[in-house]
């Protein structure tokens, strides 16, 4: 690229000591908590056996414009005092570097009532843990109130697209339309 660089301001970031880092995983909500948030009035979440016929599966693929990549979703029928309130669905999507578990609540009108990410995992292949590079943080507390352990990180980076998740939601709406009755 045509970037004009200055004279001497570049400095080398030492990357000699590279250690494997665990995949970062953040749990935002447990399934039960997400259920209560989405349907506070509900008194029963009954597991629904999602067992589509090959024809239904093909119809869902076609309506969603994509094939499932991470298995079938877990589905609950939601009721209050025996009356149907809608559906609660937990699904996974796998992106370039991320693996996401998310929950969608559908009302009786099949509209999306809520969409929450339950788990977000990024595969950080390696992380630099170099003493010289880290020294610049000496005397500053890295574990201030919002930092909790090594697994939760504040990352600034170019935008990671949520297209896979949007595709996933479209697929769940197709399942609702074609299979859930």
């Amino acid at each position, binding site marked *: 690229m045509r970037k004009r660089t200055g004279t001497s301001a570049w400095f080398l970031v030492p990357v000699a000591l590279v250690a494997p880092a665990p995949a970062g995983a953040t749990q935002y*909500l447990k399934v039960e908590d997400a259920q209560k948030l989405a349907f506070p009035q509900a008194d029963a979440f009954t597991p629904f056996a999602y067992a589509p016929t090959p024809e239904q599966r093909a119809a869902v693929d076609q309506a969603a414009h994509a094939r499932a990549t991470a298995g079938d979703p877990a589905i609950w029928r939601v009721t209050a005092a025996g009356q149907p309130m809608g559906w609660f669905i937990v699904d996974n999507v796998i992106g370039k570097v991320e693996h996401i578990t998310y929950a969608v609540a559908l009302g009786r009108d099949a509209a999306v009532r809520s969409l929450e990410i339950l788990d977000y995992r990024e595969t950080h292949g390696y992380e630099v843990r170099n003493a010289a590079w880290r020294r610049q943080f000496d005397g500053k507390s890295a574990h201030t109130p*919002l930092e909790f352990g090594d697994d939760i990180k504040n990352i600034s980076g170019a935008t990671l697209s*949520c297209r896979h998740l949007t595709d996933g939601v479209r697929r769940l709406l197709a399942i609702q339309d074609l299979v859930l009755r």
Partner: protein
Amino acid sequence: MNLHRRARPLLGTFVEIACRGDAGVCLPAIEAAFEAIARVHRLMSPHERDSDLARMNERAHLEPVQIDEETAYVLAAALELNRESGGAFDVAAGSAGSSGDIELLPQRFVRYARALRVDLGGIAKGYAVDRAIAELASRGITHAIVNAGGDLRVLGGDAQLIHLRDPGAPATLHPALMLASGAVATSAGYFARAVVDPATGEVIDGRDSASVMAPTAMLADALAKVVLLRGSLSRALLERYNAHALVLRAAGGALHARWLPQVPA
């Protein structure tokens, strides 16, 4: 006092809100903050039908189009940044014209001198983060982080460790900055969205990333694009907006870094 974290897909990316305080205060505040971001999405996404952006791009070259106060605010900021950056920041880049063809008229009317495809993607995400932070603060929250796909802002004076991706290997993270009461945004070509140079129409896909720290996420978001394009030529612009940049460059298996205008105190 507990830490509450939520994440939702908005603005074409993942938005995370972390907030410290009692659940009774934090949870409704987080809900309101997500709603503020969703509102920015509805107003400024070029893909949402009937968004201000969609209506502008469809009709503003034919007749003045009236837009929402929030969209007008972001558009005015974008036009100012276009002038201040000598055209490097351009929300009309990649279309037939430039920001100079956009006119913001009284009473929030906007007019194009020719048909344009304006995209506020390079600034609206940062603005949405600022709106979310303002919503949290107005509800008495004193410690929070809002992160929209890497554009993030810290509310409160406790410094937070910020990790940057290695531009040569984006799955590798580097602990790089401590940030309190401010914002940081990063531009790079390593994921889907690349930056287009308005001067040449060229897509920047080099092995650089530009991270800008600024008082607001809107400024950090926009200035990161300028620094990625113009490098050290953006020094005066950064000073004007009280901002700092950290440029990372992957070359020959090594990672190099450089601060602009200088290492912040």
